[in-house]
């Protein structure tokens, strides 16, 4: 399915990237955990937008449904359960050495990204090849070529469900 955009895809890409990165930083730096969880949700929606730009609409919907619809809900629920008293707000101060660590990582990241863009940039594709990845191909490929991971995924899901249930159960 070809996505027809009225604006050039570069502009959409830059907007989505900015939203995603800013929201990810905000998720870690926000004073209150709940704001962080909401920012994380916005970051996930930005990533879903990037999936749509990459011609993977089914993955984008799955990302929104699973991450924003389930993982963020779980996180919010856990945040509400680990408050010490009702009404006390857990406001966090920054940790020691946070700024220095952030600068180090940003520096390393900048160097590695510059190196990547310089060395590998010319060798990587700059326009996507023509051809459409349709959703109706994903199902048959999943079941025909990768049936074993599918079954293992199902078993893992049931194991995770039982495990989370057993862990969070309150012994009376």
């Amino acid at each position, binding site marked *: 399915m070809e996505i027809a955009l009225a604006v050039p895809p*570069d502009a959409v*890409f830059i907007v989505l*990237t900015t939203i*995603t*990165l800013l929201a*990810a930083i905000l*998720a*870690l730096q926000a004073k209150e955990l709940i704001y*962080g*969880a909401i920012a*994380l949700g916005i*970051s*996930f929606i930005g*990533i879903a937008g*990037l*999936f749509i730009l*990459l011609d*993977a609409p*089914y*993955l984008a919907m*799955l990302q929104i449904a*699973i*991450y924003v619809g389930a*993982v963020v809900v*779980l*996180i919010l*629920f856990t945040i509400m*359960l*680990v408050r*010490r008293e009702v009404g006390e707000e857990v406001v966090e101060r920054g*940790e020691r050495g*946070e700024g220095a*660590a*952030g600068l180090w*990582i*940003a520096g390393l*990241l900048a160097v*590695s*990204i510059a190196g*990547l863009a310089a060395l*590998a*940039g010319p060798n*990587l*594709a700059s*326009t*996507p*090849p023509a*051809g459409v*990845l349709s959703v109706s*191909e994903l199902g048959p*490929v999943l079941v025909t070529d*990768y049936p074993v991971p599918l079954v293992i*995924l199902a078993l*893992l899901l049931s194991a*995770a*469900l039982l*495990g*989370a249930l057993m*862990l*969070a159960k309150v012994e009376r």
Partner: protein
Amino acid sequence: MVALVSYIIVSAALLGIGIYGLSVKRNAIRILFAVEIIVNAANINFAAFTRYLNPPNVSGQVIVFYSIAASAMEAAVGLALILVAFRVNSSIDVRKMDKLKG
């Protein structure tokens, strides 16, 4: 059109943000945020390479599908663990979770 390098740069930036959160933060739930951000960075990487392969191949999307499901599971179990740790230590500060007993 957007070059493949741009998507890899986005993925690397998200990875950097996730590593920062993982190494500096002391609140267990923020560390979980960082882990989710890192997994999403990897997903973007896979999806970008899937699209820019010549000819387009849908197997990369299978990997992302699997990764989204597996990471949701891991978030659920991780949050259950945080709940248990909170009950034992009365705090979600990871610097206080340094005893093997209990």
